Structures are given as structure tokens and as C-alpha cells.
């Protein structure tokens, strides 16, 4: 016999959203007659599924389709629903709540489910009409109305919700720009690789995505007209959607004097610091965690109902997973993907399908997963993660997904490949079946390269390389020949293949190369990153944005690091010439910054030693003021052009060797190369400038200029080979440009001209540079085009304050006093 509704205890719920109503549902399931229930809601609607607002905005669902509980549910359970009238005060002593309209209602138990508020970045103009958030049905209505007028929209914040808003607005015909402060979209859910894929996919759909972009202000007369970024860029917009995160809505709880930290503090039974007040959802903090996703809310509501009307089942926190609701773009992320002690990555990249899968394993258990393009196994990984299943038995096949890993005796990937039928497709790009690969191996193709040559399998995108190698191993036993030397352990491709593919597939960023070429590590290593940075820089001059973090320290700091962590600084002296003014400026720097040593280098320059990292910009400013620029003594670049005095002074001189040296240095400085590059010009065959042990050396003779290439000092001294003799300075410059460009385009990173020439042979160089005049002209043209982007003095930018963080500590610590910025 249940008590009449009016004699029951009164449960008042503040918040008619997903958490409040779910808690009520859970209570009703356990004991439908325990409480008389009143729900206060700020919105005019019945309980709807807030996370489905994105499909409503995208026009894929109607509001009716996302309603969770309609009016009849409230009626059937005798629930008193008060809409459009939020509670504004709680009186804990009197145990009453008061709503905005002034209604006061008593409670026995109070449940706070106020959720969270969108965070509005307080930039100038944030309160202009046309600036909205994306949180409730009213926001969706607003966006739908704005979109019907067309025009430009800006979404500030490239998180889950912001991207869903951008997608919806874009589908509704607006031209959308997403402004994201961080470098990676959805950086809380995605790693860099998946974020990059997502960015490309969204750009492919016509959205403009600006990462690393900081909003300075929103402007407009009476309504929003556009936004300005801190870097000065201006983006017109008639609608600005702020989606820069959420903040737990704790004002009411704070006013009532409940314990609140980042959010309302609750115990494992969802009870606040007042035993008669519970709280649930995004407005609570449990065990230091605040959640902004729906799955934890369901867990909390179960624990709350169990403790209130059944047997307590303490809430122990939640592991969360995320899926992006943008149709056609599959993104899944769960758990911890930031790496950490003892974590190992298992990565699968399949470029032709646009798939990136990364599972993070710690002590044989999955702790995180990031999936892009193929999220079919997301739930399986999430399940293994939540249950803490030991995956050592299926580890080898884990990344291929549940179907593969659970395939009984096929947990050994080799066995799985062995079990494939003869007509199973191995290489999708070239349509090669297993039978064809096996017969080509049986016909004598005993290495990966041989198979690629014989039947084209794995010769295109390379994603089936592993399968082909497995087939080689299965067919030949242990007799597999080692493939070409790979760039590093991160990839199965060699340097030349990577360069070829960068051009063929038009790859223009490091994460893109890593994705398309199936890198085995999430962000490469200290060997491949600088190489890729150089290859991209060389392939796409003026277009590729240099990645500082993939530069070796000297090239990042534009100075040479010494064994004590200080730097040495070498200003450029064109052709080895200097002036009293330059010498004075150098002398002043040596004294002013207490440089312990200054030395004349082998390349006819002055090297100032012992400069501290934080003093570098000031040193450069002083040297710039005297007209000197970076000498690139630190770079894989043109170092120096050494000269003798030549016909101007020397009684043996045949040509103006200093003049040509200056011209060469002014033409070639700033050009990035596979390795350091040295030049010299000697005025006669006595060769005082030692031109025959330089990468490019000119020896002047009466009748013209001998051009020598491929020499170096160092451990293995190598004298140059004579390339040719030309009659004029102009021809010498032209041949130098063509030679340098050939070296830039075809040598491997960290390969100097000497080993490069020994590898490819002088005959090859002569064929390219002498016999093929058109080819030579094209090389020179490409070199000068590239130079048009590379002759900005890197010192000048830093001296004026660019990237000052590279030269300043983050903070100073006095251990007994504290930290100071």
C-alpha cells in the first residue's frame, strides 16, 4: 500500500536537464511511490537530449525527436514541472527554495542539477547582439535564424561542441571560420595526428580552420560585424558562436553556503555538504573531477538513486569517451592518450582509407584510444579499457580490431595472413591478390623491393607493406632480404622514397607525411623530424611553415650551443671582408657581454664565444645596428664563402676572387641545405682559399673559372671533382645555383656533398648539370625562387622581440620563498 502522494516526502529538483531528469527516472525505477517530486527548469521546454542539439542544428533531427520525456511522463508520475522559472535562492534552515517568480516551495530532499554555463571569453564586444553560445534550444533557434540570412559566421573554440556548431552552420549555408586557441583541434580528446586529419577533413568541406589563433576583439556597430585576432587578422562575421568551454553552474549552491570547489563537492552517494541536499551532473565535483560528458552523469544518477531509495552503490568516478557528431567524419577518443610512465603506443595508419588508430597500453591494459576514420572498434577498446582486461594474448592483433583479434586461432597476425584465401586483396592501390604476391615471391622476388618491382604490391601508398613482408616471411621462411635502409625506426620508407612521395602526394605538413606514410610513432623522433622539416621546406618554398620544434637547437637558437650550454655567435662577413665599424661592433659585444673568447674561424669569420641564451637577442640587436646579419655558422645551410684577395691586390691573381666570393655569399646565404655547405673562391691555381676542399669551389684561371664540387675537410678529407670550366662570373653563379639546387633536392638529410657525389657519381652530375642545359636552367630557376623566401635575417626578427620566450625562463624559483614569473 503506497502512501498518498501528498503524504510523501517532497523531492525538489533544480534543473530540468539531462542530469536532473535522469536522476528522477532512476529513483522512479527503484521506488515509484517514495517521493512527491517537483522539477524547476529555466528553459520553457520539457526534458530534451542536449547532446543531440548538434543534429538539430545540422537539420538532421527535429526538436520533437530529441525530447526524452514529454508532458505525459511528468503527468503519469505526478511530477510538478515548473518551466521558465529558475530557482534563485535556497533557504537551508527553512528547507525551502524560491523561484524567480517568487514562488516558495518546501523540500525534504533537494537535488541540484544546474549543469553548467558556457564560458564567454570577456573580449571587447562579447556582449554585442549576434554573439551567442551553443548550449540550449534557444541558441539553436538563433543560429538557424541567422543562417537563413546567409553570410559569414565565426565559431570561437575548436572543441567538440564548437566543431559541431561549425558543421551545422556550414550545412545551413554559412561561410564558417573556426578560431581555435590551441594548435590541435579538440586537443583534450585528440592527439596531434588525429587533430590534423580532422582539420584537413573540415577544410575539405569548405570551413576555414585557424589554429593557434587568439581573438583580440569582436567589433560592430550595434551588432556584430566581425572579429579581429591578436595577430591583426580581421574576419567578417554576422554571427559569432562562442564555444570556449563550460563552467559548472554553482552560483546557487555558493549562495546557499554549500561546500564548493571548482564545482559543488559531493561524496560517493552524490550528497553535498548538507545531508538533505544532493547534486548531480556537470555542476558537481567528485574526487577532484568535474565532468562535461554524458556517460558520467548516468553513472552518478545510478549511485544517487541507489543510495537514496535502494542499496548504496558508491560512485567511483568515470572513464570517459567521446565521439564527434559530424556526419561522415568519424572520431573517437577514450581514456588517457597523453602518454605517461610505462605507456606504450600501438599505432596503425592507413592513408588510402584515411584511418588513424592509436591504442595506448600500460602494463598490458588499454588506458586510452584515439581513432580517426574507422571508429568501429571504439566501443570494444573502451570496453576493454573500462574492464581493465589483460590484452597480452591479443596484443599483436589488437590494433586491427575486434573481428581480427578475437578470431580464435588467428591472434597471431602471421597466422591470420596465412589463413587468407589466394584471391584476397593485399594491395588495394594496385589490385594485387595474395595469390599473385605469393607466386611472384615463388618466382624469385625475395625482397620487398623485388615484390614491388615484380607485381606492384606495396609500391604505391605502402599501407600493405606489413602484409607483403608477412607473405615474404611465410613463403621464404627466414630468407627475407633486408629492405632499403629506412629513414629511422619510425618508418619503413627510406629518405629517397619519402622525398618522392612528398612531391607525388603533395604532402605539405609533418603530421600529413606521418599519416600518409604510416609513421609508427605519433610524432616521430629526433632523426626523422628535422629531416622531414627540411624536405618539406625544400619541396614547398614560400608555402611550408617551418616547424621550430623539429629543428636542432642551433637552428632554433640561431647560434652554436657549446658544451657548457652557452652559445657562440658568428656574424656574416661577406666573402671574408670586414670594416672598422663591424670590428668595433664585434669588439663592443665581446666586452659588453663578457664573452670569454673571440676567435678567427677556418672560414674567415670572427666567432664570439660564451654568450648566454638570454643575451642572444641583445647581442644580435647590437650586431644588426652595425649592419651585420646572421652568419649561419650554426645551420645546415651556406656557412661561409672563403676568398683570397685575387686580382685586385695579388700579383698572381687572375680574376676578382673576392668580388665573386661576395656575390656568391650574397646570393646563396639563408638557403637551407641537407647539411652544412661551404664555398671558396681562389684567384689563381695556387688556391690560397683552399677551394678544392669545399662543397663548391671556384679556382680562377686566366681564361675563366674552374668549378669544383664535392670536397670537404673533416675526418675523411676529400678533394673536389672538377665539374667544368666556364668563361664568366655570370655562368659561374648560374652553375652554382643549379648544383646547389640539385644537392638540395636529391641528397639525403645530413649527407654532405662529398658522400652524395660518391653515391650518385660525377657522370650523373654532369648529365644533369652540363648535358641537360634546360634541366640546369630549371634547377637554377627553382633555386632563385626558393631564395626569394629565405633571405630574411633570423637575428633581426629575434632582436625585435620575436619568439622571446625561447630566450627567457618560464619562471624563477627561490625554493624557500616561491616562484616568480
Amino acid at each position, binding site marked *: 500500500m503506497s502512501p498518498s502522494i501528498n503524504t510523501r516526502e517532497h523531492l525538489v529538483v533544480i534543473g530540468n536537464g539531462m542530469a536532473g531528469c535522469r536522476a528522477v527516472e532512476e529513483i522512479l525505477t527503484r521506488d515509484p511511490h517514495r517521493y512527491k517530486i517537483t522539477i524547476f527548469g529555466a528553459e520553457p521546454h520539457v526534458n530534451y537530449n542536449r547532446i543531440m542539439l548538434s543534429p538539430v542544428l545540422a537539420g538532421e533531427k527535429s526538436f520533437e525527436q530529441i525530447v526524452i520525456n514529454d508532458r505525459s511522463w511528468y503527468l503519469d508520475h505526478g511530477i510538478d514541472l515548473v518551466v521558465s522559472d529558475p530557482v534563485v535562492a535556497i533557504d537551508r534552515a527553512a528547507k525551502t527554495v524560491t523561484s524567480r517568480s517568487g514562488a516558495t516551495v518546501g523540500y525534504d530532499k533537494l537535488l541540484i542539477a544546474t549543469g553548467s554555463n558556457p564560458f564567454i571569453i570577456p573580449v571587447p564586444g562579447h556582449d554585442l547582439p549576434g554573439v551567442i553560445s551553443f548550449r540550449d534550444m534557444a541558441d539553436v533557434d538563433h543560429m538557424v535564424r541567422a543562417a537563413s540570412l546567409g553570410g559569414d559566421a565565426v565559431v570561437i573554440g575548436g572543441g567538440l561542441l564548437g566543431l559541431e556548431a561549425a558543421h551545422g552552420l556550414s550545412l545551413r549555408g554559412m561561410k564558417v571560420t573556426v578560431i581555435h586557441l590551441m594548435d590541435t583541434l579538440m586537443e583534450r580528446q585528440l*592527439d596531434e595526428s588525429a587533430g590534423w586529419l580532422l582539420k584537413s577533413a573540415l577544410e575539405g568541406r569548405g570551413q576555414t580552420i585557424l589554429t593557434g589563433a587568439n581573438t583580440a576583439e569582436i567589433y560592430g556597430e550595434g551588432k556584430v560585424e566581425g572579429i579581429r585576432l591578436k595577430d591583426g587578422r580581421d574576419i567578417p562575421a554576422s554571427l559569432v558562436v562562442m564555444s570556449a568551454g563550460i563552467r559548472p553552474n554553482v552560483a546557487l549552491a555558493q549562495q546557499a553556503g554549500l561546500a564548493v570547489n571548482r564545482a559543488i563537492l559531493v561524496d560517493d552517494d552524490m550528497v553535498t555538504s548538507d545531508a538533505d541536499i544532493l547534486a548531480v551532473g556537470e555542476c558537481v565535483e567528485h574526487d577532484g573531477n568535474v565532468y562535461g560528458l554524458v556517460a558520467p552523469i548516468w553513472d552518478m544518477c545510478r549511485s544517487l538513486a541507489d543510495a537514496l531509495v535502494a542499496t548504496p552503490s558508491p560512485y567511483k568516478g568515470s572513464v570517459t569517451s567521446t565521439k564527434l557528431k559530424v556526419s561522415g567524419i568519424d572520431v573517437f577518443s577514450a581514456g588517457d592518450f597523453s602518454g605517461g610512465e610505462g605507456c606504450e603506443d600501438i599505432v596503425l595508419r592507413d592513408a588510402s582509407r584515411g584511418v588513424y588508430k592509436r591504442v595506448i597500453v600500460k602494463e598490458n591494459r588499454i588506458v586510452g584510444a584515439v581513432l580517426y576514420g574507422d571508429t568501429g572498434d571504439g566501443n570494444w577498446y573502451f570496453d576493454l579499457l573500462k574492464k581493465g582486461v589483460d590484452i597480452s594474448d591479443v596484443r599483436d592483433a589488437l590494433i586491427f580490431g575486434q573481428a581480427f583479434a578475437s578470431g580464435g586461432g588467428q591472434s597471431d597476425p602471421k597466422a591470420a595472413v596465412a589463413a587468407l584465401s589466394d584471391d584476397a586483396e593485399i594491395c588495394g592501390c594496385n589490385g594485387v591478390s595474395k595469390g599473385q604476391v605469393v607466386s611472384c615471391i615463388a618466382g624469385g622476388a625475395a625482397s620487398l623491393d623485388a615484390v614491388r618491382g615484380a607485381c606492384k604490391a606495396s609500391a604505391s601508398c605502402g599501407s600493405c607493406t606489413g602484409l607483403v613482408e608477412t607473405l615474404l616471411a611465410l613463403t621464404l621462411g627466414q630468407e627475407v632480404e633486408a629492405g632499403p635502409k629506412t629513414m629511422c625506426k619510425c618508418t619503413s620508407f627510406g629518405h629517397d622514397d619519402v622525398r618522392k612521395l612528398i612531391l607525388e602526394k603533395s604532402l605539405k605538413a609533418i603530421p600529413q607525411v606521418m599519416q600518409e606514410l604510416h609513421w609508427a610513432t605519433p610524432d616521430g623522433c629526433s632523426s626523422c623530424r628535422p629531416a622531414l622539416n627540411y624536405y618539406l621546406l625544400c619541396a614547398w618554398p614560400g608555402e611550408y611553415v617551418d616547424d621550430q620544434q623539429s629543428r636542432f637547437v642551433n637552428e632554433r637558437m640561431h647560434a652554436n650551443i657549446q658544451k657548457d650550454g652557452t652559445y657562440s655567435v658568428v656574424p656574416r662577413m661577406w666573402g671574408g671582408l670586414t670594416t672598422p665599424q663591424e670590428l668595433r661592433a664585434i669588439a663592443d659585444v665581446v666586452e659588453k657581454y663578457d664573452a670569454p673568447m673571440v676567435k678567427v674561424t677556418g672560414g674567415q669569420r670572427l666567432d664570439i664565444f660564451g654568450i648566454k641564451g638570454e643575451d642572444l637577442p641583445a647581442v644580435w640587436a647590437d650586431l644588426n645596428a652595425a649592419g651585420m646579419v646572421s652568419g649561419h655558422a650554426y645551420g645546415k645551410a651556406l656557412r661561409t664563402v672563403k676568398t683570397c684577395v685575387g686580382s685586385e691586390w695579388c700579383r698572381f691573381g687572375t680574376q676578382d676572387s673576392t668580388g665573386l666570393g661576395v656575390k656568391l655569399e650574397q646570393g646563396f646565404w639563408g638557403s637551407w641545405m641537407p647539411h652544412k655547405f661551404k664555398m671558396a673562391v681562389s684567384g689563381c691555381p695556387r688556391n690560397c682559399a683552399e677551394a678544392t676542399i669545399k662543397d663548391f669551389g671556384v679556382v680562377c684561371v686566366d681564361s675563366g673559372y674552374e668549378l669544383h664540387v664535392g670536397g670537404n675537410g673533416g675526418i675523411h678529407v676529400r678533394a673536389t671533382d672538377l665539374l667544368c670550366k666556364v668563361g664568366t662570373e655570370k655562368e659561374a653563379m648560374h652553375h652554382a645555383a643549379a648544383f646547389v639546387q640539385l644537392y638540395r633536392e636529391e641528397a639525403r638529410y645530413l649527407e654532405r656533398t662529398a658522400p652524395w657525389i660518391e653515391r650518385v657519381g660525377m657522370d650523373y652530375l654532369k648529365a644533369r648539370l652540363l648535358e641537360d642545359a634546360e634541366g640546369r636552367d630549371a634547377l637554377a630557376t627553382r633555386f632563385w625562387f626558393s631564395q626569394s623566401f629565405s633571405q630574411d635575417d633570423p637575428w633581426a626578427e629575434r632582436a625585435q622581440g620575436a619568439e622571446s620566450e625561447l630566450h627567457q625562463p618560464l619562471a624563477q624559483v627561490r625554493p624557500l620563498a616561491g616562484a616568480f*614569473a
Partner: protein
Amino acid sequence: MSALDHIAPEWLDIGPVTDIPLRGARTVPVAGAGEIAVFRTSGDHVYALVNSCPHKKGPLSQGIVHGNSVACPLHNWVISLETGEAQGQDKGCTPTIPVKISGGRVLICRQSTLRIAA
């Protein structure tokens, strides 16, 4: 073990996470002692180590950060950011300092900082 170990852990706020470049590092000099290097990985994990390679004391903060490791700029030893241990064939270990992130700011453990300063 010193008496300081029994003091409840205290944390020093050294600045916002976003002031450390992704796949990069910043330094924090400790008055009267050495320097701490604070790293931020591509996975947005933050680590703090003494800014000194166990090999020849190279400034690790200037190395190339990849995965959860850094390659020392002097001789390319690869040091784990989690444990401070040299990877591969090389042997040696750089002391690590516990880090936590709170409200987007980086906090380092004062006790460990004191210990390396001593």
C-alpha cells in the same frame, strides 16, 4: 631522508601550460642551484626534469621532444621524460620533479625542487 620530507607536499606555480610550446620546453632557474626544464609533449603531458643530461650535463630543455622523450642537444642521448632514464644502450638518469596541472597552470613540487637545490 631529511626532515623536509615530512612536510606536506607544497606546489610552486610556475606559469600557464600554454607558455610552454608543444613538443618544446622552458627553463626554470632555481636560485642558488641549477635549472629545471619543463617539457610539454605533443600529447599535452607536462614533465619537469633537472635541465642536465646524465652524460655531459647538456641542457635537455634545448633538445628535440618526441613522444615522451627528449634528445639531448649535445650528443643525442635520448632521455625519458617520465623517469629521467637514458634510453637504449646509454646508462644514466636525470632527477625528475613531480608536476601537476591545476586550472591550466603548471605546479612543481617544492620538496623535490629543494632537494635538487641542496
